[in-house]
């Protein structure tokens, strides 16, 4: 079945196929279509939609539902995502699977409803308190909004972690064709740890408190090992990169600008390729290093450079200090999108052409 839908709606479709049983959310532009779709489709399938009184409530409702062993989700945008950070820390601290979709709008503060990628740090590094991370996927199309929502549920369940689908206002609003999965996924069994109100789970305890400092440290070490292991599920893709002199590094919607930029420059005979991280955490460091070694590097991003800094950090950690030092960036903020014209100009400048 192929549907021509708004990316935001594709998120809900993916969630339903993934076996998500509960949606908790508070409306906010430009993520509201996700709540609209969920409000309509979850109850029709006998699943639960709750319009929460605030994002703090949404995320804590998820804490309860996930603690009770069900797959659940919410969707929001910048200000709401900020409000959820404490709750996401609790989800991570109690090792609960849940999916949060952030359709990034421009900030800080009220900002506006147009696209930015400026929630990068909280979406990728864990924006709340404590040493936690999330599994973070960056879709770039309606198809991926569906597919990566499904993937986010799978990763959340596999790693017992909150997973973030990190999108932006532009792709939330755009329509593209989406091929829906053939079948719904089976529900995972969380009875080993969840509080399900059944005899088998009576002794289960969902908590993030370790009053004893030594125990809290042991738990932190366990989390950090888990995050290291998550690297096995890092995802990335390259485009025209094999012989490229300049690698454009970009994620999400910016990676599509990068793609057209590379195509445009190739037509002019310039060797330009694209490296696109699909998972922002775990960051596909080794693959980036392989693609970027000895090349010129330019990022395209819709923020002040949070992503470029992360690219530099990952290159440096991969031993590519020289490449890290020379990462260039073209970016826009405030809801403006980098144009192909500007990206082409920037790339030519870097190539000295």
């Amino acid at each position, binding site marked *: 079945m192929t549907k021509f839908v708004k990316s935001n709606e594709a998120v809900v479709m993916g969630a339903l196929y993934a076996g998500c049983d*509960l949606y908790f959310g508070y409306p906010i532009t430009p993520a509201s279509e996700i709540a609209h779709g969920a409000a309509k489709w979850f109850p029709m399938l006998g699943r639960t939609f709750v319009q929460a009184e605030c994002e703090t*409530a949404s995320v804590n409702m998820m804490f*309860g539902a996930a603690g009770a062993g*069900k797959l659940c989700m919410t969707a929001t945008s910048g200000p709401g995502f900020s409000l959820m950070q404490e709750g996401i820390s609790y989800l991570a601290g109690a090792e609960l699977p849940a999916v949060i979709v952030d359709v990034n709008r421009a900030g800080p503060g009220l900002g506006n409803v147009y696209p930015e990628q400026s929630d990068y740090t909280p979406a990728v590094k864990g924006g709340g308190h404590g040493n936690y991370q999330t599994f973070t996927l960056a879709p770039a199309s309606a198809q991926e909004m569906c597919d990566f929502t499904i993937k986010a549920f799978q990763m959340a369940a596999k790693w017992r972690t909150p997973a973030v689908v990190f999108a932006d206002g532009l792709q939330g609003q755009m329509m593209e064709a989406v091929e829906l999965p053939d079948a719904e996924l089976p529900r995972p069994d969380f009875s080993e740890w969840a509080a*399900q109100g059944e005899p088998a789970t009576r002794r289960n*305890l969902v908590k993030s408190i370790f009053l004893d400092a030594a125990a809290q440290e042991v738990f932190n070490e366990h989390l950090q090992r888990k995050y290291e292991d998550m690297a096995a599920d890092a995802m990335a893709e390259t485009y025209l990169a094999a012989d490229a002199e300049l690698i454009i590094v970009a994620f999400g919607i910016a990676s599509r600008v990068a793609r057209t930029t590379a195509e445009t420059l190739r037509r002019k005979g310039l060797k330009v390729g694209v490296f696109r991280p699909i998972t922002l955490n775990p960051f596909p460091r080794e693959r980036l290093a392989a693609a970027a070694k000895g090349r010129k590097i330019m990022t395209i991003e819709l923020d002040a450079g949070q992503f470029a800094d992360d690219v530099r950090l990952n290159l440096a950690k991969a031993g590519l200090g020289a490449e890290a030092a020379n990462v260039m960036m073209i970016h826009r903020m405030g809801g403006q999108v980098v144009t192909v014209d500007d990206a082409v100009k920037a790339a030519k400048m870097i190539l000295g052409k």
Partner: protein
Amino acid sequence: MKTIEQKGMYQKFPRSGKDTRVTHYCAGCGHGIVNKLVAECCAEMGLQDQTIFVDPVGCGVFTYYYWDAAHISAAHGRASAAATGVSRARPDAVTIAYQGDGDLGAIGFNNAFQAASRGEKFGCIFINNSLYGMTGGQMAPTTLEGEKTTTTPFGRDPALTGHPLHVCEVFNQLQAPVYIARVSVADTKRILQCKAAIKRLFEIQRDHKGYALLEILAPCPTNFRMDPLKAADFCKNEMETEFPLGTFRDVEKGVTPEAIGAQHQASAALEVKSVPHVASCAELFGVSDGVDAPPAEDDPSVPERRFKFAGYGGQGILSLGICVAEAARLEKRHTLWFPSYGPEQRGGSASCSVVVSGTPIGSPTVEHPDVLVCMNQPSYERFVGDVKKGGIVIVDASVPITKQPPEGVKLYQVPAIQMAEDFGVPKAANTMMLAALRAFKATGLDDAHLETALCASFKKKPQLVEKNRDLLHRAETALLNN
């Protein structure tokens, strides 16, 4: 030493890190008494297997050391939000939130209040000891006038901090709750009444009747800075004067507030009638809202074409774009539609972009359209300079050409708005523009596909399909004859 079995509690408390049966509560603390009563009720009613306790932050945080049932330890103030999630996820379970007065009355008040208002199916046990206990005896919303706490060192002064918050009385204004009561554990008689009330709370949850709130006045000798007997006296005398005991509401037993009584409808008793049911995702999404089109196929011989549609909101600009996009899908093209959105969509100008390509689409933004369709002057002036060489501009004839298109761009002035009015269907100006796109071969798409897409766009108003098909043909004929 022989120990007496305590019903509903673990016989030792290893989760506390000690192999003993000593709780962390101070001597004379109300929590300790309530913990015992809750455990007893849960066990006596045979509900330990299906009960899920949602624990608070504060002195009640460690109930999971003691109560032999499943626990979820929530964030400060959020036990009612978490309990909402639990009870929605596990409607067959018995969900009990346990919260203190800082937790429920201050930071989490709205979460508790809204859960009550929605009629969530859980029971909330609310311990009111008039202050923050574990955090160090600070003022809570429930602190009495004149009461000295660590943040009201001179006594609570209503001129500075307002008056004590009466949680039961506030919640009693709501429609949905089925049970609201206030009890105390300050002496034996009150403890027995408290146990009966806790039992009632469990009964209501066992039978899934709806939201229940039980406020329990509890002494806190440590932070009152009193011995247990004096603390109990303070609880009984001072606190009860401010917070009178009683059952405010027990709908099943006919106790309802006057204002709510006759019209009371516990949401738990209501049947959901509004939602149509489907069996599966396949059934839900099996029917298309638009055209039934196959997935796109790569065909590098098909060049990319970028469209911009712009005009006033209400002129059908967005649906015209969708129509072109749907026609492209019928030709197995990669297709993308993107609207202007935000404040603009509530009046003023509206625009959308469409990209059609034989290969996967990169940048979704249309900086240099091959085809620009404009229905009003501001959008014409804004976008006409961007059109690609060799491109086409179709503009409504009512728009004055104050600005010439770039060289090599063909301009068509089409009286779409006038034609639609002449045909007696002023809303169909966008169909006139579709006719123009067909007549001037502007889309690179098959005429039949454009027509199919137009018809599909009226799927929800089938009576308009033939009318618009007719309008499309008449307009096209008129344009070609001109």
